[in-house]
């Protein structure tokens, strides 16, 4: 455990990048809040899409943030190789991380598209 803690990069630059990632998480949280505030109006599927995809993005980005912190900590250690019965290897974690990034990106895009539709609904005066 102490070996892991020592391997984590605690330089100013690494902490700045971590801080920016936390700010991105806070932004996603604020998007969820905004979606929930508009959610109770009837017949607003795009509001549901916006808040739902923001929430999914928030959860995925949070998991990726924690995963990245772990991976940075493991950088100094020798990577495990795929061995039956030993548990997931570095390659498996890497694949999961990439899949998480893909899904987080897709949910963020969906939230953006939903916001475009919300703006369009406001413009045309369609039922909200």
């Amino acid at each position, binding site marked *: 455990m102490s070996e892991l803690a020592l391997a984590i990069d605690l330089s100013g*630059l690494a902490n*700045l990048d971590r801080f*920016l990632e936390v*700010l*991105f998480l*806070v*932004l996603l*949280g*604020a*998007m969820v*809040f*905004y979606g*929930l*505030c*508009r959610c*109770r*109006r009837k017949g607003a599927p795009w509001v549901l899409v916006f808040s739902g995809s923001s929430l999914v993005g928030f959860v995925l980005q949070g998991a990726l943030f924690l995963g990245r912190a772990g991976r940075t900590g493991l950088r100094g250690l020798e990577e495990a190789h795929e061995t039956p019965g030993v548990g997931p290897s570095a*390659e498996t974690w*890497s*694949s999961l*991380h*990439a*899949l*998480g*990034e*893909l*899904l*987080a*990106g*897709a949910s*963020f*895009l*969906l*939230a*953006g*598209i*939903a*916001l*475009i*539709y*919300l*703006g*369009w609904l*406001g*413009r045309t005066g369609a039922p909200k």
Partner: protein
Amino acid sequence: MTEVLAVAKLAETGAQLTLLGGWALVFGALRMWSARRTGLRLFLAISLLAFALGLTAQSLVRLNAVELNYYPGWKADMDQILGEDHAEFEYSEDDLAIGPVGPREWEGPYWWGQRLGLFLGSLAATGGFLLMGREALAEKSGSRSNKPEGKGER
């Protein structure tokens, strides 16, 4: 090898989708502002624009479209490598005349601009979304308090 390429492709596609999402948020905020031109909506649109610009700069580096050699303290690191870590090597006069190749002029502003855009943009956009959420809540409670009066008039 194929696995590694597939993983890299997945991560690359994720970064591209995030970038598109950032710009979709900008267009959504602009559309909301054009529907009802309030100061708060303009503030949200501008802050999301700053965020999207920072995100674009970050994504271009992640997608290897831009190569950055700059980071704060690169010069001190370079001096340490040449002067201390490799002090035992003898350099010819021609080598010393060339000098270390540093980052290009635009790389410093690019590096700082990317982080400044992300910092200010995400902070301001967070504030914008929170204020708009509060506005939506106030509108909702206002329409609820108006409803019984409307019924009474009928």
